[in-house]
């Protein structure tokens, strides 16, 4: 092996070492000779000693590499209750109302809902997944002494694209004035059976912030979830 070949090999080795040092973040001046490389290698940072505390106040992925500890204090957004996701429980509605992100409105039907699907309200926000509908009424009708009350007609929230949970909670109702109960036929249907003489039955669809309801109204039974000449208020979040 010739001397020239050996020199070339050493030059290539030096160039390779220079490249490796620079890949570790240390600049190698062009005039550096081989015996100066050890100093540069010693200057390569070999590790981080974490110090201080990082304060984390929002959800998400946070780089905590350089910190010895993290102070996590994420408030708001609701807490998981039972099997509900944070956005799919009534407390999230209160949170959305308080923070101005909830959509609200009201509607009054002029007549009984037809037997074709009609838009009941459009929240005009495809991100909303849940809603409640409320109506003002009276309690104590059967006792002769009535007082104003607000009734939560029904509440729908989506836990996923395929599962819809429905709840009906007549608020401020006496036991003798419960309006009925609600049962789920399948993902897209609801039926409300009243304890009084009327029978309510309807199909609903809740997609992209738009509630559509198709009544079934005929001379034998009244199939409609909403009365004409009654103002209902809704909240969607």
């Amino acid at each position: 092996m010739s001397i020239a070949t050996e020199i070339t090999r050493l030059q290539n080795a030096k160039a390779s070492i220079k490249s490796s040092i620079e890949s570790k973040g240390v600049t190698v001046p062009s005039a550096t000779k081989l015996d100066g490389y050890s100093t540069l290698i010693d200057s390569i940072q070999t590790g981080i000693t974490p110090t201080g505390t990082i304060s984390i106040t929002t959800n998400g992925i946070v780089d905590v590499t350089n910190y010895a500890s993290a102070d996590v204090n994420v408030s708001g957004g609701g807490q998981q209750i039972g099997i509900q996701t944070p956005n799919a429980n009534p407390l999230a509605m209160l949170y959305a109302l308080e923070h101005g992100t909830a959509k609200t409105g009201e509607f009054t039907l002029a007549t009984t809902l037809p037997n074709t699907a009609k838009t009941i309200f459009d929240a005009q926000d495809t991100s909303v997944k849940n809603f409640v509908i409320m109506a003002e009424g009276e309690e104590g009708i059967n006792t002769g002494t009535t007082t104003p009350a607000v009734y939560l007609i029904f509440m729908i929230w989506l836990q996923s694209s395929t599962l819809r949970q429905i709840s009906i909670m007549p608020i401020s109702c006496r036991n003798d004035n419960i309006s009925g109960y609600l049962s789920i036929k399948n993902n897209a249907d609801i039926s409300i059976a009243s304890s009084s003489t009327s029978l309510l039955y309807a199909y609903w669809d809740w997609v992209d912030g738009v509630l559509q309801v198709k009544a079934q109204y005929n001379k034998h039974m009244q199939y409609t979830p909403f009365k004409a000449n009654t103002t209902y208020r809704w909240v969607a979040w």
Partner: protein
Amino acid sequence: MVMRYYKQVADGYILSIGVGGSGTEITETEYNEIKSVIHNKPQGTDTYDYQLKENLTWEMYGIEPVVPDADAEELLNILTGESND
């Protein structure tokens, strides 16, 4: 906060009025006028009811029987208060 009043019209009849983003925007004056008419809706019966025309007059219509899209067992459950889950 500016309130947006609307009316929802289908086939020449006013289905509903409201506050929010639906339907055709109307003035508060028109909203209150329609609401006043709705408050004076004539009472229907089991065989006929009234629907509100765009000119704010009521038109009587007959209620035709409709066969619900459910089987007999489901209807029986509704009548008897059983769940259809």
